[in-house]
């Protein structure tokens, strides 16, 4: 019978990257575009976020905790994207010090 889990031998242990397990605090530059810029009444701000590692999700959690228009615009089911340094990112994407984290409403160009 196969064990439900097993402890791998030392030789098979993956290298642990402690940068991703030790809590880190970083300061990112938030950028708000189009409708979100108008809703939040600002085009950018600095935000300090802590995590192991700090992620896009942690940034969003801090913003949602401001309640009011922040919680409404960034709530579950609202359509928006996050870009980190100009590339679309996921909730679990890591953010690093001085990253530019942009909140983008659904695009309507063309």
């Amino acid at each position: 019978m196969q064990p439900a889990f097993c402890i791998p031998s030392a030789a098979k242990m993956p290298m642990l990257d402690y940068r991703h397990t030790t809590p880190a605090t970083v300061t990112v530059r938030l950028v708000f575009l189009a409708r979100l810029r108008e809703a939040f009444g600002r085009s950018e701000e600095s935000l300090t976020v802590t995590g192991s590692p700090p992620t896009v999700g942690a940034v969003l959690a801090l913003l949602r905790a401001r309640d009011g228009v922040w919680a409404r615009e960034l709530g579950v089911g609202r359509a928006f994207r996050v870009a980190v340094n100009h590339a679309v990112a996921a909730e679990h994407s890591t953010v690093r010090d001085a990253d530019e984290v942009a909140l983008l409403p659904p695009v309507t160009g063309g």
Partner: protein
Amino acid sequence: MPIRIDTADFDVGREIDALRAGDPRVGAVAAFVGTVRDVNDAAAISTMTLEHYPGMTEKALAAIVDEARARFDILDALVIHRVGELRPIDQIVFVAVTSGHRGDAFDACRFIMDFLKIRAPFWKKEVTADGARWVDARESDDAAAAQWEPDGTARR
């Protein structure tokens, strides 16, 4: 310069001439021009303001053009997108593709437009008699881009 974001208008003839100038391999040029309609969602439009996210816009468009080059047998491509205040009848966007033959030129031109619509960070704000409003994204644009993907979905 294959990608241009500009407040100024563009001359379609001149742009096409420049794109295919001196290249005898070109046998086909496909081009698309998007213009401002005077009506959207049953409201009359007086002006429209287009904004974008400088830095990301150029990267997003370059990635779309690169993908078109990988998928289709094309020689060159040009994307021009205007920003700032526009009025009905104004030109907004221009995509032109050169190729040896028309099939790849048509396909690549349409592919670039379909993904520009869902991936390039531009936003339109319309002014109507009831005031200004941000234009909503359309599901039909997602469906158009999704047609190019084997699994039938295209992530914004």
